């Protein structure tokens, strides 16, 4: 056993109460083992990781329990002794490499710093080690790239650098806290493959913390499920995923969207008609930005960004159209342009054969629901005012009717109308998303654009919201454009699907057909890299898709 946790309790002492983030946990990992910890937000999985390397911040504190690392209890070590372990024996990979790498230091400085902090070797040797480590994580031209700064790398490359730094001192244990959550599917697959390979080669133990069970299926040896600060179930991958014992594990696995439940509908009535749409994000032309341009090395980066290139699309009445693509492919921009929030550069959009324009957005027929339920509701208004404001302004109802009107829509979206006098911060993420949907429905739209509405939510809540969307689609004959980066969600919910890549639609068709027999190579790459809880030991080969 390289790490043994006995009855660990980590509590947070806040003004109002004590939050038992980690509550009596027992956990073992032997060297070379890859152990996945899965749980929903607030289950204490990150706090557990932080407790091990003692990076807890006020008001968090380990109140009880022992953590044996190589047979020695490390909970009682002082900061100086802990420093000799942290980074040397146990290292950590965080979710967002943009944040965990220092933006003003070059990769070289950061890596060498990590080496020299724990080893008495010369600067030159340290540099060789750093270059070696970058080569290991698959960065080409490592000797040149090491001089670069974090912003010169893409998201996936940054995470590779973070992994290289974590591995550079050949630690016995790596704790990875949601390292692929911010990454696209194809990049995620590469990182999964890479970490698995490196850990097996170096016989390093790895604790992989995630909210996404499907990521774990092809990666880990064992899985622990956490719920409310406790580990409810531990076991081998096959045991947990195929034969779960605990009711919570069952619920978690059943919430993962599987397969496709929607048939394509035989309708040929187009609600929205998009022709040759182009959107360019202009670079700001100010003195400061020009000065910046002057000193910029990569001039080709400065060409205006085409978010959407000459895109044409028909949206049929009453269907659920899924739009998938990786980050930066222009899918959100498309949604915002259709709903009239953003201005387009060229092309036409017709709603019921009438052209819609940004300058005179007067129609309420196309509404949009946003990704982040925490910022999409005005925090200073009560729910009743949030939902009823637009209907009152547009004279759909008058002020006296608002209570009745709002309760109707809250009921429709599965929220008790008794809660209408509360403020948004008193609701959970899923409830807020329901409120946001109710707000959009209150103006009786015929098209609802859902921009990543479930990606900020836990799996079980996600399933409920998806079912709500399906119900609204059926009962109100609402046309839904469902934008998401998550292929399995889109597959589950949509009738037709459009796959976007760099501002273009590369494939469009019946979801069943697209997901079972993709024709475009990009769609194939996406599907090949999609983690799936039914498949074990997938060989995440370098299915890197390159343009053309």
């Amino acid at each position, binding site marked *: 056993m390289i790490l043994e946790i006995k009855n660990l309790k980590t509590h947070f002492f806040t003004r109002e109460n004590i939050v038992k983030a980690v509550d009596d946990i027992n956990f073992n990992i032997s060297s070379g083992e890859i152990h996945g910890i899965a749980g929903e937000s607030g289950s204490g999985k990150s706090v557990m990781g932080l407790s091990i390397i003692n990076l807890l911040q006020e008001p968090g504190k380990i109140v009880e329990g022992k953590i044996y690392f190589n047979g020695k209890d490390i909970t009682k070590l002082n900061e100086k002794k802990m420093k000799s372990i942290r980074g040397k024996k146990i290292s950590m990979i965080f979710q967002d490499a943009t944040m965990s790498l220092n933006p003003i230091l070059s990769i070289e400085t950061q890596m060498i710093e990590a080496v020299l902090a724990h080893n008495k070797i010369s600067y030159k040797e340290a540099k060789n080690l750093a270059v070696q480590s970058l080569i290991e994580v698959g960065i080409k031209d490592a000797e040149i790239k090491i001089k670069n700064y974090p912003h010169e790398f893409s998201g996936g490359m940054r995470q590779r650098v973070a992994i290289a730094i974590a591995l550079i001192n050949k630690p016995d244990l790596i704790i990875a806290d949601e390292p692929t959550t911010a990454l696209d599917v194809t990049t995620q697959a590469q990182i999964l493959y890479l970490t698995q390979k490196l850990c097996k080669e170096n016989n390093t133990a790895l604790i992989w913390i995630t909210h996404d069970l499907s990521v774990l299926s092809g990666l880990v040896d064992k899985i622990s499920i956490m719920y409310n600060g406790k580990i409810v179930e531990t076991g081998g991958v096959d045991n947990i995923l195929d034969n779960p014992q605990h009711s919570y594990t069952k619920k978690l696995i059943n919430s993962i969207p599987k397969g496709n439940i929607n048939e394509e509908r035989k309708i040929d009535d187009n609600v929205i008609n998009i022709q040759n749409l182009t959107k360019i994000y202009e670079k700001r032309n100010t003195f400061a930005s020009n000065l910046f341009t002057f000193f910029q090395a990569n001039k080709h980066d400065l060409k205006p960004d085409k978010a959407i290139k000459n895109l044409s699309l028909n949206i049929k009445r009453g269907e659920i159209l899924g739009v998938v693509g990786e980050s930066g492919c222009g899918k959100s921009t498309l949604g915002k342009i259709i709903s009239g929030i953003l201005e387009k550069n060229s092309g036409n959009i017709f709603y019921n054969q009438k052209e819609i324009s940004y300058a005179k*957005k007067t129609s309420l027929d196309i509404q949009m629901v946003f990704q982040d339920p925490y*910022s999409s509701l005005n925090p200073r208004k009560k729910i009743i005012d949030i939902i009823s*404001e637009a209907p009152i302004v547009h004279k759909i109802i008058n002020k006296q009717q608002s209570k009745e009107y709002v309760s109707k829509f809250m009921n429709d979206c599965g929220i008790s109308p008794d809660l209408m006098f509360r403020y948004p911060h*008193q609701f959970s993420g899923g409830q807020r998303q329901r409120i946001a949907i109710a707000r*959009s429905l209150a103006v009786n739209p015929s098209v609802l654009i859902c921009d990543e509405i479930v990606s900020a939510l836990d799996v079980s809540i996600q399933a409920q919201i998806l079912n709500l969307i399906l119900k609204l689609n059926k009962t109100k004959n609402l046309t839904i454009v469902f934008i998401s980066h998550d292929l399995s969600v889109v597959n589950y919910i949509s009738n037709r699907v459009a796959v976007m890549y760099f501002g273009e639609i590369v494939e469009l068709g019946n979801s069943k057909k697209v997901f079972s027999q993709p024709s475009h190579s990009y769609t194939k790459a996406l599907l090949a890299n999609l983690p799936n809880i039914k498949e074990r030991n997938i060989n995440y080969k370098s299915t890197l898709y390159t343009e053309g």
Partner: protein
Amino acid sequence: MKKNEFNIVDFVKIYSEDKLALFFLINLIFILILVIFGPLFTLQNPYDLSQLNILDSLLPPLSQSYENNYFFLGTDDQGRDLLSAIIYGLRISLYVGILSVVISLIIGIILGVVSAYFGGIVDSFIMRVADMVLAMPSFLIALVLLSILGRGLENVVFALVMSQWATFARVIRSSALSEKEKDYFYSAKCLCLPQYRIVFGHLLPNCLPPIIVLSTINLAFAITLEASLSFLGVGLPITEPSIGLIISNGYEYIIVGKYWMSLYPGLFLLITVISINIFSDRLRILLNPRLNI
């Protein structure tokens, strides 16, 4: 579930975890009571000449008058009770300070939100004017304006507003710019709400928290600025003597050893400004959303 309403008892409880801040808050409340109800318990109205006795002039602290009145802080060259003069002076100082902060706040909020919402040329114009104001020392702006306009309460308030609105506009603009990127703003647009509703109903209320702290800091600044102007003799007229004017009155007597005429009003000014500053500093910590009270 977090608590619904803003609870004043809880707030005071959390505020008083810092004992120093609590001390200065009590101090501030005391000063406010003194200033608001001052005329009820001062010895005399120091600017009613019929109540003054020239025979009482230049008495040191704790002396007694012919009418057996104690002058706790002594008297000035007119035989005026210094404590009463200070209380009346603070009244005027605080009045001018609060009035100028409120007016510059209103101007700053409107200009800041408008400039963030419309952007482009409107934004550039308003912000370049604000930059010009910020580039000059506020003391200089006030001094120049007052030497053109002359003394007078309205003129002092005008000068203070002119030197302060730009800070408010800047802060409001930057917080409005970040609020503008949040999804509730997009969704208000998507629901076709009229512009005035988006700006004043959605954008503005969410920009206010940083302003609460800034206005208390600016209040302290406005009071000192006014005191300095009055000390130099360009601020308030003799008929409305603020604390700065009282200090400058006693200034020439320091040389002959009659220190109290400047020292005590100076101390009162100091305590007032420190109390406001420490209060605003504590507010800044408590209103920080990351600390989650």
